[in-house]
C-alpha cells in the first residue's frame, strides 16, 4: 500500500467513520435494519402514514451517526424565494453532455445503456427546462475520484458524469455504461448495489433533491444500509428503474425507464389563495 493511500484512508476515517465500525459483520448490520423496519411496520399497522423518504437517523449507515439533526425539522410556510428556482438552459448545458460514452477518444468498456424518463412534480405536472445531473461508477465499480481506493480498473474512456436539461414534458435521456457494484467501508464485506446518482431541481427550490437510481433485481438491495434507510417497501421500489424494451435500440443499447417525482410545488396553491382575499 502506498503512503498516499494510507494517508487518504486515515483522513477519511478520522472525520467520518469510527475505525471499529468496519469490524461489524453484515449479519449485525442486517439485524439492525430488520429491527428498524419491523418497528416501522408496527407503526403502519397502528395507523401511521406511510413514509416516502429515508430516515436521516439510520444507525446501520454508520457515517450518519454524527451527521443527522437530532431536533425535528421546523415546519415553515415558504416565502417568495423558496417558491422559485434557478433557471438553467442551453447556455449551461450542451446537448452532448447527456451521452457519457462520447467524452473521450475511445469507447468506454461495459454494457451500453440508455436511461430515460420524466421529471414530474407531486401533482404529476412535468418539470420542463430544468437541470438533471448524474454521476456513477464505471463498469468495474470504480469512480474517478482520488478517494475511491477500490482496486478495480479505471476506464480512461469513462468519467461517469452527465448533464441534461429536461424537455417540455419533463423528459430526459442519458446514454451511459451500466455501473457495477463496489465495496465500501461501512462494515466488513459491505457492497453497494449498482446505482447512478441523480441531482434534480424543480420549479420551487424546496423541491431540490439528490438521490440514487438502482437496477431491477439487484441481489445487494437487502444488505445495503443506504437503500434500506428507506423503511417503506413501496418507497424503496420508487428508486428502481424498469427494463423497457421500447427504450432498447437495435444492436446498440439496452434501455431503462425511470420517472422521478419531486415534492409538491407550493407556488400555485399559495398564489391562488392570495387571489381569494
Amino acid at each position, binding site marked *: 500500500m502506498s503512503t498516499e493511500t494510507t494517508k487518504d484512508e486515515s483522513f477519511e476515517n478520522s472525520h467520518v467513520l469510527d475505525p471499529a465500525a468496519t469490524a461489524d459483520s453484515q449479519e449485525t448490520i442486517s439485524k439492525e435494519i430488520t429491527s428498524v423496519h419491523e418497528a416501522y411496520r408496527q407503526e403502519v399497522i397502528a395507523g401511521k402514514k406511510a413514509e416516502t423518504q429515508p430516515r436521516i437517523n439510520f444507525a446501520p449507515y454508520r457515517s450518519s451517526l454524527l451527521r*443527522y439533526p437530532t431536533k425535528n425539522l421546523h415546519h415553515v410556510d415558504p416565502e417568495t424565494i423558496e417558491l422559485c428556482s434557478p433557471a438553467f438552459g442551453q447556455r449551461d448545458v450542451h446537448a452532448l453532455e447527456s451521452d457519457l460514452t462520447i467524452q473521450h477518444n475511445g469507447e468506454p468498456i461495459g454494457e451500453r445503456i440508455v436511461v430515460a424518463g420524466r421529471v414530474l412534480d407531486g401533482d404529476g405536472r412535468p418539470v420542463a427546462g430544468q437541470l438533471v445531473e448524474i454521476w456513477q461508477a464505471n463498469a468495474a465499480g470504480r469512480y474517478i475520484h482520488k478517494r475511491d481506493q477500490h482496486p478495480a480498473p479505471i476506464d480512461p474512456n469513462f468519467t461517469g458524469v452527465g448533464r441534461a436539461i429536461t424537455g417540455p414534458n419533463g423528459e430526459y435521456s442519458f446514454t451511459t455504461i451500466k455501473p457495477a457494484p463496489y465495496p465500501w467501508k461501512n462494515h466488513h464485506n459491505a457492497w453497494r448495489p449498482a446505482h447512478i446518482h441523480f441531482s434534480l431541481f424543480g420549479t420551487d427550490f424546496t423541491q431540490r433533491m439528490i438521490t440514487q437510481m438502482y437496477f431491477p433485481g439487484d441481489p445487494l438491495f437487502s444488505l445495503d444500509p443506504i437503500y434500506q434507510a428507506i423503511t417503506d417497501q413501496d418507497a424503496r421500489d420508487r428508486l428502481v428503474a424498469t427494463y423497457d424494451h421500447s427504450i432498447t435500440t437495435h444492436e446498440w443499447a439496452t434501455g431503462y425507464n425511470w420517472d422521478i417525482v419531486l415534492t409538491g410545488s407550493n407556488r400555485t396553491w399559495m398564489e391562488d389563495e392570495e387571489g381569494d382575499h
Partner: protein
Amino acid sequence: MSQAPKLKLAPTPGQTIGPFYGYALPFEKDNELVNQANPNSVRLHGVITDGKGEVIPDSLLEIWQADENGNVISRDGSLVRDGYTFTGWGRTAVDNVGHYTFTTVNPGATEEGKAPFIMLTVFARGLLNRLFTRIYLPEDTAALAADPLLSSLTEEQRKTLIATREEDGSLRFDIRLQGEHETVFLSYPRES
C-alpha cells in the same frame, strides 16, 4: 393559511450525495454569484460541523437568493458564468478543513418589511437526505423581530439562523448538523 392540497403522486425518496460527486457537481466559479471585483460583493462563509464538533469536509452546499433589490432572478448562466449575469444560485464543495465561501451580494427584502434571507441546502456523505435552512441578514432588527419563522423559535434556535456581520463586511454563518447549537433545519408543505 389553509391546508395545502394533497399530492397526487408519491415523491421519489432522496439518498445521500455520497463521497464521489467531485467530477460531477463542482464547476468553475460555482461559488461566485458575483465577481470578487464587484464593489458590492460580499463574502458569505463559515464552517460545517458534526455532532462531535468535527468539520465535515465532504459536504456540498448550495445557496439561492434574491438580488440586492429583492428581485427573484430567472436567468440562465449559472453553470457557465460570464462574470456579469447575476443568477441568484451558487454551489460549493466544502474545503478540507470544513470551510466554505460564497461571493455574493446582500439580498434585498422580497416584500416590504420582510427580513431578507438566503436559502441554503446542505448535502453530505452520511446525510441521507438534503437539509434546507435560511441564512438571515442581521441588520434589519425590526423585520427579524416580525419574522414568522424566527418568532416561532427559542432564542438559542433563532441565533442559529442569523448570520454575523464581520468587520470587513463578510457574512459568517456556521452550520452545525448535530449537537450543541444545532442549526434549525426546515420542512415545507407538500413534502409527502
